[in-house]
């Protein structure tokens, strides 16, 4: 379908343009706003791939939560001085070569592995995690799998969040 391709190009443009602006802008606030554009592009790509729950989580958690946290911190610290000085490392040539090598390596593997992505039809071995009939929503399937197969990782994630909360409080408080 042509419309899918157009949507893909629009979201890819948002993602890559936002990412490029994020790493090149001098002003940190501009960087953060560009990163928000990039994250919205990724959210659109999620929606294209029927990941509605992740689409919502991406917007609520990333754009609404993490990026607002970033903007708060940018407001709290004084960046006027650092915006005036040199933005890039002294060894940027070495870094450029390293990044080009990473990009070339991944592209080469993707190019060589073209046939490897003809993934087998999994209909023969249905698992609990398989997409059920399309009348069931993505969120419902996800919840079933999350609270049955992935219950232990879910609990561990909650402990991780608790550790992060305690760590942030310890870091921010002067005297405990």
């Amino acid at each position: 379908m042509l419309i899918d391709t157009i949507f893909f190009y629009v979201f890819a443009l948002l993602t890559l343009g936002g990412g490029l602006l994020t790493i090149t802008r001098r002003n940190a606030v501009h960087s953060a706003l560009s990163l928000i554009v990039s994250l919205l592009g990724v959210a659109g790509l999620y929606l294209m791939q029927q990941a509605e729950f992740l689409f919502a989580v991406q917007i609520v958690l990333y754009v609404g939560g993490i990026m607002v946290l970033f903007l708060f911190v940018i407001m709290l610290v004084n960046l006027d001085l650092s915006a005036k000085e040199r933005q890039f490392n002294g060894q940027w040539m070495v870094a450029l070569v390293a990044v080009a090598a990473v990009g070339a390596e991944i592209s080469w593997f993707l190019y060589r592995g073209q046939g490897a992505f003809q993934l087998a039809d999994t209909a023969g071995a249905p698992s609990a995690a398989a997409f059920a009939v399309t009348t069931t929503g993505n969120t419902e399937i996800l919840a079933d799998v999350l609270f049955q197969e992935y219950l232990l990782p879910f609990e561990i994630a909650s402990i991780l969040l608790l550790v992060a909360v305690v760590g942030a409080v310890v870091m921010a408080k002067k005297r405990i």
Partner: protein
Amino acid sequence: MLTAVPISWFLTLSAVLFALGVAGFVFRRNIITVFMSIELMLNAVNLSFVTFSYHQKQVNGHLYAFFVMVVAAAEAAVGLAIILTIFKNRSTLNIDDVDSMKN
């Protein structure tokens, strides 16, 4: 049911996004921008997870992406607290100036 866009396009986009994140991580001298580059890389990986999940018709990849988001949230909270502490103690956010472990 599947979109007409081939899987390799999504994966290539994810790879380019990851390379952008690596570039920002290595190039920039401002800690906050370096931190944002990490978020870019995490998003690139999440995009790969969702793409593979969609083509395998399984939701396991969605859950991995979800857990990556949880870790990213925890990392943002602690990391931004560290950034604030560094700024309070040294009044600079230049990573080249924060090198006391070097000597």
